[in-house]
């Protein structure tokens, strides 16, 4: 059918089942926006308040649906602003399709108004990118982009389209198939290696399963729970693997890492066999991989061969999609049920080393953020999405908000401040049936609170918790510990009154600074319909751990 490239781009999105896009227009992307307007019945066009937040919202959306989500920016500064979101998605392997406008083809390279080489600038952070110069490539590029973003190890794909190309016409048909000779992601694991890994795991005396974000990426939550329960093996997660296991599963030990649970780190050091599933052994998860490698047998599943052996040497490497490989392991066990060692002593050993959590009495006029989150979790329904920002609030949310089946979403790899609120907007829109809470600090909130307007404008019912200590708490703590308490550049004096700020957006808000307000806030966070902001006042010296 004859149509413009812009119309064809919209047809591509429709063919891929895209229902919502997050973006910010400008001159160079106007032809595409014009075509989007004609398709508004099929595709909801959300105006975010900053391009990076459009990317983060798409990220939240993609993480809930498990499919690539779309964000849009104009050329130059718009595209460059998007880079933070692209890098954030890349670090956490989240499938995004990022569409940017570009200046006219004949002007590329001449530094005209709002020109930036975005395919070049974003290159380190994209799984792949396209600069569309020929209108007849549009269908193939979109088809490939969605395929590349969503398969294998997922990631962001950028499509840069010059304005003149957007206006050109072509005879368009969306390709039915995609065939990229140089991109054939592995699915199933090598049968022999699956057998070896399964035997090594179940015959081990003290095995431990470590879950990373790859388990969500491959939608292998059920398989990994089934495997650990079948073999009676305890489980730890990285920050990206949080919420695969319910916190009340007796096999779940906790999150590992520099800010992880003591008991989880104890289990890593005490185990004799560590089974990594979609975990890349990042430095915040495992500080000294070389020591671990020496003392522990490492079994490692990853869909990305480059992750195996990158940070830790694997005794048993296994390349494949976690869901398929775990299914193969379960099938093997079903056919060969003998050979599983008794792990009850090992589980007891972990249990005996657990220390109960005790909460310190909060300073007057503040609340204990850990206790607040624990109480909130007890009151909230199980299927809640928790979107944590970065810093102390993130660690508290990961450790003390008890998860029972919802999702824990955070920028684990890149540690991007300001991720939480836009992520919550996207996550809530992806599945409105789930209550969704953004948890951030007063630092991160001031990087993303403009998205409250987006939530108001489109009626996205999210709850926002802002933990305020007028400090960049984690950096302050680092300065206290590592720099002889020379605190600098961490004071957030001059911050607005967050309750009044919410009011300015027409959002009800409550300040939490004692037991009574704490109770009320928890009740309202659980029960109120519509947006709500809770400012949780935290003591300035409250420690992360």
């Amino acid at each position: 059918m004859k149509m413009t490239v812009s119309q064809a781009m919209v047809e591509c999105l429709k063919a891929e089942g895209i229902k919502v896009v997050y973006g910010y227009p400008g001159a160079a992307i106007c032809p595409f926006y014009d075509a989007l307007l004609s398709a508004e019945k099929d595709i909801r066009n959300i105006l975010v308040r900053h391009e990076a937040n459009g990317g983060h919202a798409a990220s939240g959306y993609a993480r809930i649906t498990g499919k690539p989500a779309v964000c849009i920016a104009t050329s130059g500064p718009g595209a460059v602003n998007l880079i933070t979101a692209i890098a954030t998605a890349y670090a956490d392997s989240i499938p995004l399709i990022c569409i940017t406008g570009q200046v006219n083809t004949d002007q590329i390279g001449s530094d005209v108004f709002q020109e930036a080489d975005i395919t070049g600038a974003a290159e380190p952070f994209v799984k792949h990118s396209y600069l569309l110069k020929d209108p007849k490539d549009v269908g193939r590029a979109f088809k490939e982009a969605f395929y590349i973003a969503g398969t294998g190890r997922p990631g962001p794909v950028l499509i840069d389209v010059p304005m003149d190309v957007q206006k050109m016409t072509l005879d368009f048909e969306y390709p039915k198939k995609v065939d990229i000779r140089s991109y054939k992601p592995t699915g199933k694991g090598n049968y022999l290696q699956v057998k070896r890994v399964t035997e090594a795991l179940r015959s081990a005396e003290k095995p431990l399963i470590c879950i990373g974000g790859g388990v969500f990426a491959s939608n292998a939550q059920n398989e990994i729970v089934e495997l650990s329960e079948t073999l009676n093996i305890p489980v730890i997660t990285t920050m990206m693997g949080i919420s695969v296991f319910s916190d009340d599963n007796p096999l779940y030990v906790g999150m590992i890492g520099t800010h992880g649970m003591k008991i989880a780190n104890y289990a890593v050091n005490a185990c004799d066999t560590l089974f990594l599933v979609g975990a890349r052994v990042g430095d915040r998860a495992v500080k000294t991989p070389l020591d671990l490698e020496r003392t522990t047998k490492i079994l490692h599943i990853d869909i990305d061969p480059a992750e195996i052996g990158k940070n830790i040497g694997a005794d048993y490497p296994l390349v494949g999609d976690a869901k398929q490989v775990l299914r193969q392991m379960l099938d093997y066990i079903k056919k060969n049920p003998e050979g599983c060692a008794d792990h009850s002593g090992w589980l007891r050993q972990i249990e005996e080393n657990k220390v109960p959590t005790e909460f310190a009495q909060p300073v007057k006029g503040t609340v204990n953020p850990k206790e607040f989150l624990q109480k909130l979790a007890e009151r909230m329904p199980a299927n809640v999405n928790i979107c944590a920002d970065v810093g102390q609030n993130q660690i508290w949310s990961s450790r003390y908000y008890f998860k029972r089946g919802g999702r824990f979403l955070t920028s684990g790899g890149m540690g991007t401040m300001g991720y939480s609120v836009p992520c919550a907007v996207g996550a809530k829109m992806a599945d409105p049936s789930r209550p969704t809470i953004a948890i951030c600090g007063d630092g991160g909130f001031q990087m993303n609170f403009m998205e409250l307007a987006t939530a108001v404008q489109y009626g996205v019912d999210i709850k926002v918790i802002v933990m305020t200590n007028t400090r960049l708490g984690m950096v302050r703590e680092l300065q206290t510990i590592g720099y002889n308490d020379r605190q600098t550049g961490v004071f957030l004096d001059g911050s607005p009154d967050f309750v009044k700020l919410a009011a300015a957006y027409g959002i009800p808000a409550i300040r939490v600074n004692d037991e009574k307000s704490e109770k009320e806030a928890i009740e309202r966070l659980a029960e109120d319909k519509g947006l709500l902001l809770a400012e949780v006042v935290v003591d300035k010296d409250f420690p992360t751990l």
Partner: protein
Amino acid sequence: MKHTISVLVENHSGVLSRISGLFSRRGFNIESLAVGPTHDPSISRITIVADGDDHTVEQIEKQLNKLIEVIKVKTFGRDEFVARELMIVKVNAPAEKRSEIMTIAEITGAKVMDITLSTMTLELCDRYDRLCRFENVIEPYGILEMARTGTVAVERGSDYFSPKKGS
């Protein structure tokens, strides 16, 4: 240790920058990089000589393979390949030195491409280490200008590196 890596890539614009960018941001050191077309016009071949231990080279290979436009990667083992590099060098060659330089050219197999009253321009196509030796002996005459292509290499024997054959 030096490694010679052959990479078959889609002949698209931008591929080279993706590859060179990957090397710099992952901290891999490139000694030389040569790129050119192959008998299949849709495929270019890049030959990279890189420095690093086995772990680094394994990572280079894996990271290269992750680039969508990279079709195939192969790191050649020692003595598994034949390799050549072209060097063009312009040296000071006043009349009284010309015959000396000619002798060196004869011994090393270098050819004279150009000559003036005061200079000679020589070309030599050979292995990397031989080019280095040639450079050493010609250097005392005064090198004015030099250009090298970087190594290109193919597998020794009847086996061959092709996008279609299994990895």
